[in-house]
């Protein structure tokens, strides 16, 4: 029995499907692609599948992963992408399958690129307005948590936005991600929206995941 980490993209239309739908899609491809997947034992056996860091709806992802367990040690995992892609939509494509090197608990950061716009505001102006926010002492937004509403200061994350030197309002940013601490970029954008009293359109791409030492998650 071996663990296998399957790497895939989730883009275009497929960024609009929920985690549950993604799970269904991937499982279908795993089963029909003939992967010798391990089923849990017990009363209601089901294929053993976990997603180290599930992505939220509405975000494009370039490097997502899913862990499965296979029962046939001689199975050649390099055939996984072609076996599964046959049953996957164009927005979800498997590009690699590896033996996991790190436990998912080591995921600490995720890197995103994002582009913002607001109807009736020039991108350049929008960028300046956002940069102006960094002069504030804090940018607070309320977030629902198990213990009720909680105030969060997203200022450090706005400061971390690395804007492109052009006339667009595009940036890259690295945010805490993982089981212990997780900051969702749409929440940061929501805080900016509230502060600027503007309705923002965004497109976000999750580029990669890293460990605490900023090593790529493998």
């Amino acid at each position, binding site marked *: 029995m071996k663990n296998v980490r399957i790497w895939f993209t989730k883009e275009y*239309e497929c960024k609009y*499907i929920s985690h*549950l739908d993604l799970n*269904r899609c991937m499982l*279908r491809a795993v*089963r029909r692609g003939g992967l010798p997947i391990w089923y849990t034992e017990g009363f209601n056996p089901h294929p053993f599948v976990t997603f180290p860091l599930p992505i939220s709806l*509405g975000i494009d992802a370039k490097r997502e992963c899913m862990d499965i367990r296979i029962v046939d040690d001689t199975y050649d995992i390099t055939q996984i992408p072609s076996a599964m892609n046959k*049953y996957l939509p164009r*927005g979800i494509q498997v590009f690699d399958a590896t033996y996991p090197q790190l436990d998912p608990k080591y995921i600490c950061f995720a890197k995103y690129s994002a582009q913002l716009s607001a109807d009736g505001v020039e991108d350049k102006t929008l960028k300046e307005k956002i940069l102006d926010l960094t002069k504030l002492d804090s940018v607070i937004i309320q977030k629902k948590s198990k213990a009720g509403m909680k105030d969060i200061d997203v200022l450090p994350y706005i400061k971390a936005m690395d804007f492109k030197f052009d006339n667009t309002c595009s940036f890259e940013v690295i945010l805490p991600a993982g089981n212990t601490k997780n900051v969702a970029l749409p929440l940061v954008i929501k805080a900016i929206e509230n502060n600027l009293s503007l309705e923002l359109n965004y497109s976000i791409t999750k580029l990669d995941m890293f460990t605490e030492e900023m090593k790529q998650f493998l």
Partner: protein
Amino acid sequence: MIHLYSKEVEKILLKVQKPGRYTGGELNSIIKDKDKVDVRFAFCFPDTYEIGMSHLGMKILYSQFNSYDHIWCERVFAPWTDMEGLMREKNIPLYALESGDPLTEFDFIGFTLQYELSYTNVLNMLSLAGIPLLSKDRKELNNIVVAGGTCTSNPEPLADFIDIFFIGEGEEVDLEVIELYRKCRNENKSKDEFLKLAAQIKGVYVPSLYKVDYNEDGTIKSFAPTNGAPETVEKRIIMDMDNVYYPYTFVVPLVEIVHDRAVSEIFRGCIRGCRFCQAGFLNRPVREKSKKTILEQCKKLCESTGYDEVSLSSLSSSDYADIVGLLTCLTEWSDDCGVSLSLPSLRVDGFTDDIMSKIKTVRKSGLTFAPEAGTQRLRDAINKNVREDELLKTCHVAFSGGWTNVKLYFMIGLPTETLEDVEGIAKLGQAVVNEYYRCEYRTKGKGVNVTVSASSFVPKPHTPFQWEAQDTIETILNKQKHLKESITTKKITFNYHAANTSFLEGVFARGDRKLCKVLLKAAEKGFHFDGWNDCFDFDAWMQVFEECGIDPAFYASRKRSFDEILPWDFISYGVSKEFLKAECERAYQSVTTPNCREKCSNCGAACYKGGVCVEKRQNMVH
């Protein structure tokens, strides 16, 4: 160019529930170069994505149209209210999922009509697309609005809106009309000329070519074709089920839908002539696919979609002539490759445990029976061939095999029904409960759960009950109450349908052209999703009828005489009116009619010279 929906749509997708229904891009969806196709067809399903994507007819025609290089068929569904609100707010016209193009860019806008309460969605979808609702306001030879599906068996309530109705099965007639359209366009013909020529094609009904006059009491005085249109419109029917087009692949949705699985259609029609059942009469005679074809289609579909469940579709699957042989050969294949079988419309009597246990629907949801009526007398009157002792025997076998769930489907408001018949429903439910406790080998320590569902009977065109008065809402409510009180055990769960929804369904099912103005007004008021409780507003509907000066009871609650001209009389489904009348009379005498395999009753459908009408009957007992 991989994003097919527009930037404007993208901006609202994150603000609606389940955005995955509005994006397209599913596995096996078909993208063509719009500059290289000749005809663009928008296949519109007037309900949500989840429901429309589960519909077999749409899958068949989508694949079939797209199998031609010069046609690009795309899918359109009714956006849910949150999406519709945003689309209207931002002036985003209704678009097709494959190209993201608005419906105005299509040559054909085709609706499938499965349910009367979806009519407002048809109009609402046209309005969302910015297309004029009335046929006469669409003057050019494009945006031709066509409609097919069960409800075209009485197309009249939509006569002012639809350019062309397809009567019967669509595989051939739709394509003939598309070809005629190409020809007319090449010859620069007008829309009117095209419609007149289309009316000559068998299975085509062009409502604008017919003139209706009314008597003072509101009934029809005359119904006359003009411009050479045929007096009787005959249904189209496919006789060779092994060679008719069937898709090798389905679009696999990204989001969960109602029936997310492969489907193989095993036959069309039904040998049983239950007198209330419209599907049974519209689709005569029974035509089967061979085992070989079915197996091959199941294999190909699972291979191309990745589905590991295949459902066998028909009106009454256990009536497939060699059902045991079919299931045996299918389970051999499905066991082998990890696919599970489901049979939604299965009469479980006469099956071995072995076969039953292999069927996923039976395994998962328990046994389902549709006795439809509570007493043998009423079952004879509606010609529903389910006997209490047989039902109990099958339950007994199933209970011994470990099943604990039974679902029983009934109708209330059937012609000739008395309160005694209504009580009979509760009694039959109780008998099933008792049978469980009588069963020695039942699952020990577990109770039984019997679900009794009662829908309200709606008389439908082209059935022996097409002349009957539908029970008024008040009567239905009384019967529901009576039934509820007759059920005394907690082992029975009782479900029933809203009586006022059935009333409205009944009005449109047997309506005439005068109802067009009611629908128009309803559309102007923004009615939509009337089949959904969240949207259905009965009082608002009654208000519309009042404003139009139309009494809905005229259509639903009135008993017609045999010699009245019915709005749908000009359509022939092969079954003669004489046969329907005779069947209606037999109902009142509680006399049953044998099924097509037992004995041919000369209903008229033998005119198609095939299917069960020419089958050799094995047991010539009658």
